[in-house]
C-alpha cells in the first residue's frame, strides 16, 4: 500500500485553506476556507479508511462530510443575519 | 410516499451494507417512523428528465473545469436565467443543483416563476494574448 503517496499531497493541499483562514480578515473568506478544510479533512478520512480497509472509519468519514456541511450552512445563515442587523 | 421510503432505505443500506434480517427490520422501521412532509404528487416525466440531466451534467462539469484550467477565465458577470417554470420544491432544488454543479455558473438567488440569478465566469480578452 502506497498510502503515503496519496495522503501526503492531500495534507499539503489542506495547508492552503489553513493559511487563508489565518490571513484573511473577511468573514466570508474565512467561511470559504472553513468549507474547504471541512471537505478536505473528510476526504482524507475517507481515503485513509479505504486504504486501511476499515469500514467504521469510512462511515465516520461520510457522516463528517455531511455534518460538517450542515454546520457550515447554519453558520452562514447566522453570519448573514448578523450582517443585516 | 413510496419515493421517500426507497430513498431512506437506500441510504440505510449504503451506510450499513448489511442484509441480515435484523438490519432490514431496523431500516424499514426507521424509514416508516421518520416524519415526512406531504408533498404534491410530482410529474414522473419531469423527474426522469431531471435525473437524466443530473447524469448528463457530470461530464459537462468536468469539461468546464478543464476549460477553466486551460484558458484562464477572468470576467465575471451576473445574469438572469430562465428555467422551465415548475413549482414543486424538489424540482426547484434540482434546478439550483444543476446550475451550481457546473463550475462556471453558480445560482445566487431563486425568484418566483422560474427565474434564477446566476453568477457566471467567462473567458477574458486578456486570456487570448496569453495563450
Amino acid at each position, binding site marked *: 500500500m502506497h498510502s503515503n503517496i*496519496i495522503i501526503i499531497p492531500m495534507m499539503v493541499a489542506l495547508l492552503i485553506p489553513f493559511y487563508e483562514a489565518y490571513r484573511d480578515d473577511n468573514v466570508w473568506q474565512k467561511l*470559504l476556507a472553513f468549507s*474547504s478544510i471541512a*471537505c478536505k479533512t473528510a476526504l482524507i478520512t475517507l481515503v485513509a*479508511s479505504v486504504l486501511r480497509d476499515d469500514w467504521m472509519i469510512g462511515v465516520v468519514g461520510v457522516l463528517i462530510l455531511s455534518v460538517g456541511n450542515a454546520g457550515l450552512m447554519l453558520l452562514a445563515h447566522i453570519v448573514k443575519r448578523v450582517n443585516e442587523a | 410516499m413510496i419515493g421517500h421510503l426507497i430513498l431512506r432505505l437506500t441510504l440505510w443500506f*449504503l451506510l450499513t451494507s448489511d442484509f441480515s434480517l435484523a438490519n432490514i427490520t431496523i431500516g424499514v422501521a426507521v424509514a416508516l417512523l421518520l416524519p415526512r412532509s406531504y408533498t404534491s404528487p410530482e410529474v414522473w416525466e419531469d423527474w426522469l428528465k431531471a435525473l437524466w440531466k443530473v447524469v448528463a451534467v457530470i461530464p459537462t462539469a468536468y469539461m468546464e473545469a478543464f476549460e477553466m484550467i486551460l484558458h484562464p477565465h477572468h470576467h465575471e458577470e451576473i445574469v438572469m436565467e430562465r428555467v422551465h417554470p415548475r413549482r414543486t420544491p424538489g424540482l426547484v432544488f434540482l434546478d439550483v*443543483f444543476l446550475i451550481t454543479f457546473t463550475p462556471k455558473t*453558480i445560482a445566487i438567488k431563486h425568484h418566483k416563476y422560474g427565474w434564477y440569478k446566476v453568477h457566471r465566469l467567462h473567458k477574458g480578452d486578456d486570456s487570448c494574448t496569453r495563450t
Partner: protein
Amino acid sequence: MTENITSFVGYAFIALGIFLWFWGTSFLPRKRSLLFKLHTLSVSDILGSIAIIIGLLVKLPSEWPLLILAIFSLAIWNTILGYVLAYCSSAGVDHE
C-alpha cells in the same frame, strides 16, 4: 495484467483529483472576489473529490456502498453549500 491496469487507472483518477484540488485551492489566498473563489473551489472540492473517490472505487471495489454514498453526499451537500454561501454573502451586499 488486468490488475495492473485497474491499479493504474485508479491512481490516474486519484492523481487527477489531487491536481484539481491544488489548482482550485490555489486561488484561495489570492485577491479575488468571493464568488470567483467559489467557482474555483467547486472545481476542487466537488469535482476533484469525486475524482479521488472514483479512483479509490476503481482500485478497491470492495467498499463500494460507502464510496457511492460518499459521492452522493459530496455532490449534493457541497453544491448546495456553494449556493447557500453565494446567496448569504450576496444578500448583505445589495438589498434589491
